[in-house]
């Protein structure tokens, strides 16, 4: 006869409520693990979707995901000419926050060369960008429809396609526009600013006594070109030809002034070790604390439940029950509670994880590891109750 099951059946209300409470706690632990993995996935999303072998960024910087990196767009031609490079494409990144439907609307805008690579990884609705201007593809998480318009910089942009789960390292959903549009949005000034620049620079030129009138006139005629140049990008990504040596290509680009070629491995390290390390540690610590709390709660529940059953245990001992029957009753209850609570926690997160504001990645290994930890916690926690039960004297069954 399974005494653990019989006790649970009799006290099912208390057992279910306890399991639900513990399940919610384990659900938080599971979600923390999912957020922990999600941080990784988010941080590496753009890096992985771009499928580049080398990221050429501004010298002495860690690239566009870590800090400001500005390089001229036309460096792509030099990079394409490097032996071993199959193709090179410029990319522009910027985080934009505007107001939409009365609420702050934040996203990560990626500008890409329509003839190059680094664009949206897959279109799930609508189509890819076909025109050089005023079209955009947005991530599903932006909750926009095909055909919707959005005002950015000086122009309106029409959503022509929806892509999947592309996010910035900060977790903001991504939107794609042509590189020219991204540069316009980032650098193009409004008419007042242009007029202001022209007047300020013109006045400065007029004040330079060493220039000849002809030189001054030439410069004033070309102020627009000097102040309105938007041909700057954050990085140029390159793919290598089959068999090309990554280090040789990196070495060659490193010799040029003003550029730093980062491999995918180096970018990954910058993103994971540098940018999300503290958040990961925080989440890891939080998970450990929650597991310790779970262990304490399970121990208390099992101990209290054992105390409630002192008379039962004493009676069982008095009628000659073996210790294994009593140990089995306590251990099985503890394990059943852990397994049911884990199931509740898992189901809860499985049903709600896509509704979390940040990405939650549930990996089989993490779930299995947590299950093993929960079983270990339940086993260890039940020792508290078992120890108490084994100390109960059969004589305690006698008397009132």
């Amino acid at each position, binding site marked *: 006869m399974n*005494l653990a099951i019989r006790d649970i059946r*009799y006290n099912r209300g208390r057992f279910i409520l306890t399991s639900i409470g513990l399940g919610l706690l384990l659900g938080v632990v599971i979600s923390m693990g999912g957020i922990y993995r999600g941080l990784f996935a988010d941080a590496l999303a753009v890096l992985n979707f771009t499928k580049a072998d080398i990221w050429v960024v501004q010298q002495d910087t860690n690239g566009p995901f870590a800090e400001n990196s500005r390089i001229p767009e036309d460096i792509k031609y030099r990079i394409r000419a490097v032996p071993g490079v199959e193709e090179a494409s410029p990319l522009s990144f910027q985080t934009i926050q505007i107001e939409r439907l009365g609420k702050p609307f934040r996203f990560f805008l990626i500008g890409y060369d329509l003839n190059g690579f680094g664009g949206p990884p897959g279109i799930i609705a609508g189509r890819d960008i076909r025109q050089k201007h005023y079209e955009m593809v947005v991530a599903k998480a932006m909750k926009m429809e095909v055909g919707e318009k959005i005002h950015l910089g000086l122009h309106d942009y029409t959503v022509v396609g929806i892509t999947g789960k592309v996010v910035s390292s900060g977790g903001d959903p991504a939107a794609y526009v042509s590189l020219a549009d991204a540069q316009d949005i980032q650098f193009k000034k409004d008419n007042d600013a242009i007029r202001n620049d022209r007047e300020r620079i013109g006045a400065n030129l007029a004040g330079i006594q060493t220039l000849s009138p002809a030189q001054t006139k030439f410069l004033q005629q070309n102020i627009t070109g000097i102040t309105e140049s938007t041909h700057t990008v954050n990085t140029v990504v390159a793919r290598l030809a089959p068999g090309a040596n990554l280090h040789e290509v990196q070495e060659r680009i490193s010799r040029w002034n003003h550029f730093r070629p980062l491999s995918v491995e180096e970018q990954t390290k910058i993103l994971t070790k540098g940018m999300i390390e503290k958040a990961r540690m925080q989440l890891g610590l939080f998970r450990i604390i929650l597991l310790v709390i779970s262990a304490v709660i399970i121990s208390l529940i099992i101990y209290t439940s054992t105390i409630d059953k002192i008379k039962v245990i004493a009676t*069982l001992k008095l009628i000659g*029950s*073996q210790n294994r029957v009593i140990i089995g009753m306590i251990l099985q209850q503890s394990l059943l509670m852990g397994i049911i609570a884990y199931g509740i926690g898992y189901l809860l997160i499985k049903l709600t994880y896509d509704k979390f504001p940040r990405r939650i990645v549930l990996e089989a290994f993490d779930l299995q590891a947590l299950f093993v930890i929960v079983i270990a916690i339940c086993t260890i926690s039940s020792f508290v109750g078992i120890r108490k039960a084994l100390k109960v*004297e*059969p*004589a305690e069954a*006698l008397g009132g």
Partner: protein
Amino acid sequence: MDKTMHAIEVENLTKIYGKGETAVTAIADATFQVKPGELVAILGPSGSGKTTLLTSIGLINEPTHGKVVIDGTTVADEGWLPGIDLKRLRREKLGFIFQHHNLIPFLTALENVMVALEINNLPKNEAKNRATELLAALNLGHRLTNYPMALSGGEAQRVAIARALANKPKVILADEPTAALDTVNGKNVMALLKKLAVGNNSAILVVTHDHRMVEGFDRIFHVSDGRIADETNNLGEE
């Protein structure tokens, strides 16, 4: 008398709690025998040592001195005999009835009886059949699936008696079995115990402080200050 005829033999049984100046003698030099089928009461006021005597015979409380033999097996002789399996002996040879029935609250009446049988390694089906028979014999056939909470005091005590009888023990030890019952139910339980003692050929040792409940007992031991002061038979003869 042939010693094997006795279900219980107690010789100079002494139990002392504590040591030195704080030592308290709970029972001193108790000597008696109980035959199978005999119904014996241990009568005495609170603190007289009757429960200590019961627990020493019940293999719960180790005697300080003296000898205890249960159904021909010597279990204690100046302390427990080395290597003796007290739990097995309790399972196989003893049945216990308690003051407050001590039924397991999360088991039904049937399961409360079955648990004693399954602890003694009886297969589940056999245990179920035997428990059902026992409960039916005690007029509890209609209460098999009821939990103890749903039973009256008398019914719960009858389930406890069924549990005590489940493994056909040679000795049944009852600690104030009527204390939680009204007079009518108490007398019914005592009558039932007497019937079982005769029917099952089990020795029944009942500890009680209530003189009214020991009518018809074969023998009555009067315990006072840890000693068996005197013994009377069912006719009141000393």
